């Protein structure tokens, strides 16, 4: 009974909201779907909303870390948003540091981060163009 988590696209950003009863199979499907869609849409960012999740165990934690690595290789930044305070406390005690996973308090904040990256990229390109001409 593995269902697919819908992925929404806004501009160059993909957004997925994790349902509360996330099964392992569904988590793996999401990883595949997002990897494919990053390439398909040349996405620059991925926002994973985990506010519905009341726990993040090592399996889900590993899935998030893997997604972050995959998207980095595909030139997109994954930002995990909406982690509940109790989940953060439990994760840390569990020994999962989620190193390499960018987090933000909410999607608004994540969008700001992604936009500032895009602007920086454009500035870099402009600098490069100046330099070349």
């Amino acid at each position, binding site marked *: *009974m*593995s269902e697919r988590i819908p992925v929404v696209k806004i501009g160059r950003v993909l957004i997925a909201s994790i349902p509360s*009863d*996330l*099964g*392992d*199979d569904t988590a793996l499907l999401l990883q595949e779907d997002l990897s494919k869609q990053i390439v398909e849409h040349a996405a620059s960012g991925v926002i994973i909303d985990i506010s519905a999740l*009341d*726990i*993040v*165990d*090592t*399996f889900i*934690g*590993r899935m998030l870390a893997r997604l972050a690595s995959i998207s980095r290789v595909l030139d997109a930044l994954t930002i995990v948003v909406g982690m*509940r*305070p*109790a*989940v953060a*406390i*439990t994760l840390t*005690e*569990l*020994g*999962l540091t989620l190193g390499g996973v960018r987090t933000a308090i909410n999607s608004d904040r994540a969008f700001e981060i992604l936009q500032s990256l895009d602007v920086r990229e454009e500035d870099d390109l402009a600098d490069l163009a100046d330099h070349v001409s």
Partner: protein
Amino acid sequence: MSADSDGERVDISTDADVVRVRQAVRAFALRAALSIVDQTKIITAASELARNALVHGGGGFARIALIEENGRVGVRAAFEDSGPGIVDLERALVGGISTAGGLGLGLSGSRRLVDLFALDSDSRGTRVTVTKWKR
């Protein structure tokens, strides 16, 4: 009649059963009126142990119960599988060593999340019981 006779049994044979164990533990944690953080901790530990029973033990079952002892209320979750058992218990509990490509934090991590942790493993299977008290 023992205090935990009203416990709930959840069979663990598929991925979806791990989710079912989490839901059952959540229901009992609510009944025990555990704090949000303590609920999260016992559900997370149960999720790890249910997956261990599935992945390492080839499936098994969980029994979740509300317990009362010396005026204290808590939730107890017991996991049992009939897998090959854990060969090196000490190493398994140290953490950071995985035999299934994971992080090796499942067992050691879940021990840190609960108040009581009992483990018993031999060639006939593994039994783990965790308890979280209401503070």
